[in-house]
């Protein structure tokens, strides 16, 4: 068995309704596992970038790329080289914080992680954190003892470092 690990695929697609369905459907039908997917517009208004994290061995990932390439609405697909990319994820975390001691602990941790408190209520704090998935995982671990009420994560978005780009001329 080849080693299964996470791979990040960047796909430039037509920015129009139905494309996410087509891509998600392909993954479902072929039995590929999406760990996370993030979609958003690019510097060109008619194009969107999908950043897809997929778990699988080398052969599976090669198939994923080839099958994605076959879709008419998918214009360009690249596997990002994990050694030279910037990846970011954003999370919103709602933590139980009934007393001032907990509040100040949460705020202190948030400072260390360069996270921000974005909402306060009588029973909770909401923290916004951006970074690599590892960083977010670590922060979440710290928050658990306080009682994490809700988490929203965007999934990874990524670009290659330097001049290399996945772009349509």
């Amino acid at each position, binding site marked *: 068995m080849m080693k299964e690990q996470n791979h990040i695929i960047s796909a430039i*697609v037509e920015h129009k309704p139905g494309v996410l*369905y087509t891509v998600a459907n392909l993954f479902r039908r072929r039995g590929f596992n999406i760990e996370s997917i993030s979609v958003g517009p690019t510097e060109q208004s008619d194009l969107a970038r999908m950043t897809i994290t997929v778990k699988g061995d080398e052969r599976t990932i090669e198939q994923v790329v*080839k099958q994605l*390439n076959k879709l008419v609405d998918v*214009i360009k697909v690249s596997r990002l080289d994990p050694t030279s990319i910037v990846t970011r994820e954003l999370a919103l975390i709602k933590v139980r914080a009934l007393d001032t001691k907990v509040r100040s602990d949460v705020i202190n941790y948030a400072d260390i992680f360069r996270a921000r408190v974005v909402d306060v209520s009588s029973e909770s704090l909401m923290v916004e954190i951006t970074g690599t998935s590892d960083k977010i995982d670590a922060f979440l671990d710290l928050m658990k003892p306080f009682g994490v009420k809700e988490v929203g994560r965007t999934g990874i978005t990524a670009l290659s470092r330097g001049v290399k780009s996945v772009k349509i001329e």
Partner: protein
Amino acid sequence: MVKMSGAQALIEALKRQNVEVIFGISGGSILPIHDVLYDSGIRHILSRHEQCAAHAADGYARASGRPGVCMATSGPGATNLVTGIANAYLDSSPVIAFTGQVNTFSVNSSYMIGRDAFQEADIIGITTPITKYNYQVKSPSEIPRAVRLAFYIATTGRPGPALVDLPKNVQTEVEEMEFSRNVEVRGYKPKTEPHPIQVKKAVKLLLEAERPIVLAGGGVIISKASPELLELAELLMMPVATTLMGKGCFPEDHPLSLGDVGMHGTRVANKLMLESDVLLAVGTRFSDRTTGNIDEFCPDAKIIHVDIDAAEIGKNVEVDVPIVADAKETLSLIHRLLIYQLKKQENSPWFNRVKELKDQPQNETDLGDCDLKPPLLIKELRKILPENAIVTTEVGQNQMWAALHFETHKPRTFISSGGLGTMGFGFPAALGAKVACPGCAVVDIAGDGSFIMTEQELACSVLEKIPVTVIVLNNSMLGMVAQWQRLFYKRRYSAVELGKAPDFVKLAEAYGAQGVHVGSLKEFSETMKKALKSEVTTVIDVPISPEENVFPMVPAGKGLKDIIERAG
């Protein structure tokens, strides 16, 4: 720029694609198009079930090499097409479907797309995994481009079905139309030229090979690469096995032809495949029915895989030399490079081995007291039919007997549902083939179980004057399933006995077709000869033993070496 309705634009766009025939059924949401079709000069063939409209378009495409067009109304009309579209998708056939759809809007907002209006189905969502391209037009002016792209994408690269969904109000609204020839799609750039370095590697492997073999699939037929394949095979004295989809791409009366390989492949093909040291696979996707257990497939062979679809390379089988390109271009380039470096070897040990195996008597049939054995009947049929006759098959035993025993000499003369295995495909496909090639005799080799699934098209065949012949190998059983139950389920015949209904002669007559029971090979032969001259479809009912098996057979999941040659 010219002003017209969406329906007019569709018909104009179809004419620009040289569409002569549409198979379909009308209905509420496609009325405006049928109204324009009425005096358009395009022939509309009224199927009796939309599935058959899609199969007929598929048969038309496979027989002619041109795209086949089918049309249906929204909702059930569209969903009835689905089996036919999936069938075309798995066998890479350029079928183009047009479906009506409910209005995109209305003064009464309950008639909008997405509101579960009467006869609304999300056909775009449903057909996304089984089409190469599908599109719902939102305004009439999108129609010319949608049609152009549907034809372009369906017929280029690895062909496949396309679907255009047409909301009713888009059919009636009038807009300025622009008909251009531009088919630029930034996400679709099929590539046909082989990579020179990979071709060099392939040439080197073939030069060094002692026991080279070709596995030729449907891609050879699609790319019209038969002459190049023949040339290359003869240059290397290299035997050629075909997949079910490739049957006909290499003349089966040629000394280098091995017939089909796989679950119901010939003994020779399956044996030699295992003995080969270089496998040149062209236009095939290494389906499980072809390879048997993949781990035991061609254990000693280096594999060269030529396919126009990059995603097929490495999907099922790991290959040594991948070539993503058109089969015709690649084979002709390999031939050009080889011819300077090679002396033709007439009597190589490998060719002698091919001869030796081919000369051994092949699974003779025990005649018993009846001479209506399917293999004999199909061989007799070959003698009766002219060279250019087209045979379609249903799915099951009939199909495998046809594949094993109907010696096919030309591409596009053997049409069968290979990937999806759709019972009921053969008859409507035969009608489509006959419409495409009116000068050719068309025969559907059927089983009783399959024929019942689409027999209502007899009405279409009689009224539209599309005469074909249906040979019903009638064992009153779902024969192939019964065969598996006999071999692997201790003869527990669960849900396979169809009984003696219907009487196929009376059935044919009820539709105004001819029906004939035959009781011997001689009677079959006489009836068949008459059927070829008949101006109306003939159904020949041939009783065969329900105990009849198709051999050889490689049980599912087993390797090609585990071939069963006869019962017991």
